[in-house]
């Protein structure tokens, strides 16, 4: 099953380019919106593996997007796109839980690499969580059913 990516940017130009690069080079499914206020609804409708967001948007800034995504599901990585010369806010975004950031203008390979890494992180995180859950479950099962007899 191919990964689903949500891209949020108030500039349609950015969405057109990002969607073009991703769908031309990968099998990932892309959903885009210029309106960050649609985020909660989009998260509720579909299971996204990754969210890419612009940091500076009029309706809702990227930091709020990170918070919304993380409270919905902490395992969804968020990659933040920042304008040139705003390194500080990019670092702030990472402190607030963004997986990675990428500064405009960037080469198309850069975003593809960032996506691949973020999805890999998401896969491992989820596997870890499942593994942990299974171990927890086994532990609990062992406790309730008592020591295995011979």
């Amino acid at each position, binding site marked *: 099953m191919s990964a689903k990516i949500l891209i949020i940017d108030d500039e*349609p130009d950015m969405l057109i380019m990002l969607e073009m690069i991703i769908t031309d080079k990968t099998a990932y499914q892309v959903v885009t919106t*210029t309106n960050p206020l649609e985020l909660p609804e989009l998260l509720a409708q579909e299971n996204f593996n990754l969210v890419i967001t612009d940091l500076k948007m009029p309706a809702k800034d990227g930091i709020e997007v990170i918070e919304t995504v993380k409270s919905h599901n902490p395992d969804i990585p968020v990659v933040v796109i920042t304008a040139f010369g705003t390194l500080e806010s990019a670092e702030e975004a990472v402190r607030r839980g963004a997986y990675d950031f990428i500064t*405009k203008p960037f080469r198309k390979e850069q975003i593809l690499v960032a996506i691949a890494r973020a999805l890999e992180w998401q896969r491992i995180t989820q596997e870890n969580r499942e593994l942990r859950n299974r171990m927890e479950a086994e532990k609990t099962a062992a406790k309730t059913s008592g020591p295995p007899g011979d």
Partner: protein
Amino acid sequence: MKLLNLFRRKKPSAAAAGEEFFKKKYQSFKNLLEANNAALEVMSHMEATQEGDYVFDLQFIRASAESILEKVQTIVQELNTLGDNRYAELVKVYQNIAAKIQNETEAAPPSLSVPLVLPLSQVDRRFLLQVGGKNANLGEIKNRLQLPTPEGFVLTNEAYRLVLAENRLTEPLASLVKELDIDNIEQLTEKSQILREMLLPAKIPQRLVEEVNQQYGQLVAALNYEPYLALRSSGLYEDLESSFAGQFLTVLNVPFDRFFPSYLEVLASQFTPTALVYLSQKRLLQRQLAMSVGCLAMVPARSSGVMFTADPTGSRGDVLVIDAAWGLGPAVVDGTLTPDHYVLSKQPALDLLEQQISRKPRRWIAADRGIAEEAVPLEEGSQPALTRDELLTLGRYALQLEEYFGSPQDIEFSVDLQGRIILLQSRPLTLLTPRATGILPPHLEERHPVLLDHGTVACFGVAAGPVFMVDHQADLSHFPDGAILVARHTTARYGAVLHKAAGMVIDIGSATSHLAILAREFKLPALVDTGKATQVLRPGQEITVDANQIRVYDGRLEEILQAPVAKTSLLAETPIYARLRRVLRWITPLRLTDPKLANFTPAACQTLHDITRFAHQMAVTEMFELGEQARQGEVHMVQLQTNIPLNLYIIDLGGGIRADHRGRFVSPEDITSIPLRALWRGISHPEISWAGPIPIDMRGLYSVVSRSLTAAAPQHADFWARTLAIVSENYLNYSSRLGYHFATIDALVSDVRNDNYLSFRFKGGAADESRRGRRARFLGEVLTRLDLEVDITGDLVVARLWKYPRPLLEEKLDLLGRLMGCARQRDMVMADESTVEWYIQAFLEGNYRFAGEPGSVANPDQG
């Protein structure tokens, strides 16, 4: 030397001779050089971005352009300081170019309340997101170019959003559109119908009604009568980079009491199956749910037509193509008749080259509350729809529009009953280059009879598939993948199946019709005006369409079927790249190359690059002048006497030349400037050859020659080869221009290690871009291995070094001198990547004569 005479002052004033005066001028010169270097750096960066593969936004374009503008402004100011305001003309030239750039990068001022309605007299491209591409372009034509356009007003996207919101339609429409499957025509038609039915009964918000009434009132007041209106749709990206030809509705001759129902009809037209398919193909579906509508006073048209500022099929250069018919516009673009066809030359003068006058039996006219088709009297039907004068006026407008919008344009116009031309829209034209069909196999026609050999190319290419005849809407739902669309007319709604079709053959219609434009956008081999395709071809029959040779064959001709052109769009075709290209045409092209030519003047500067080139040259000239004047004072200029053809002038700020040698000429031994002495050691290294031509291979020579055809041709390679060094005991500023190259060194070398620095820049070259790139790589690699910090952008090489001890910096300057000598024309020989590595090694090994050069032609007879 005319230039020098121009600026030679009669007599130096007493103040001019003073050291303080010179130092002030020198500060201006330094500021100018610094701004020049910085501007070139940002230009190179923008150029590299334009090559593709980058993701950027308008903010990047705006910030980069502003940064260059600021630096060029400094350059112009400092040049005027340096030259006592003798370059005031350059200020105006700069302002003019700056205005053009800002026009491209501006956005509408952010305002809290977006207006629902705007008069057309206030619309321009800054309001793109509110009014859509078509209206924004029309506003530009009206308000910036001041060409004749109708009066009117625009209902913005905000009005559309308000209609949806107040009728609670926003969400339902979006979710219906989201799940569309464009390959399922039946589902598409069904959903399209639902979408329309949701929108058409919508209630118009009171605020919108009031604003429209007010705008119409103003229109009536301005025109002195109550005009009927033409309602023209304008999508967000329409007419910018995607043509949207014929996708959305235009309603003509609407009386004001029918305004809002017609408005809703136009809004609903974005949900026709054709429009939905087009939007999806252009990846705009998610974003296109917004539409602005232009409401223009109706032009009672005697004739109407479309005009292309280039041959749309790309087979003829430098012509304008005009198609026209009687009455209102639809007759020309909807393909129901063959319009008159005119071809005009653009060069050397605008002139009518040829015309094909068709019989135009019918025309659309404004009728009571709408439009109606009527028969044209027989004798009138065969007359040309445009006069020669009208054609030439149209041609002039077309050239203006093409120049202004920066790319070939597709223009719609009408001519009113008094013979006045009115422009209705202008949008970018999709061009295709012809492709040759391979050599046809012998006896081909015995196996594959030619079924059609007459028609007009709408899009080049070869395709094969079964014939699928279409004549009304119902047929489209069964259109099979890979079929050839065959129809009587070029009806735009066939656009709904173009993404499934392999090719297209049409009986009647022109290459300028909407369907033909769409065929080109989808790169679909297509012939129009074949006359009898629907009679000759049978449904299901396997045919091969060879649009390159205007032939339709029976059966599949595998021999000539070319690999289909990929339909995926490229990054470079996106609107933001187009915007960057439009901005860059005022920034980077360099037309001003040879200062010896008479046009090396401020007035000839068309780009910021031209201004930097001009200003730099003049600044150096000014410094020479100042140096000559100041010879008697503290500061003085001397010329270096040497066998090396460098023509080096030195301005000594103090301590750079032996105090007891103050004549006009000095010898290298008289140099006391530490950095210049070190550099000179390298330049005069016995193994470096500065004289004579260097061997070049034939392709290298060709690339120089072909570049010279577009730029001004230098009379010899080292033209204008005066090199200027401004020195003191510890300081060196060295700028040289050899042929097309431009190298500067700025260095401070003293015993105080923390003050020391070295900066080297190299740009330009006579050879083509890839060769210049190779030389940049050569220089960059060598400099890196010499421990400098190197930055390469395009053909600009910047290398720096800080806080090195004096002996090490002297050594680097020595090596830089050798490197400049070697790099003098090195780009001509570097024919491929592998040779670059060879040169790097050779230089590092001290083989400065490059013995055994791989690219050289030892004997011209062999070349």
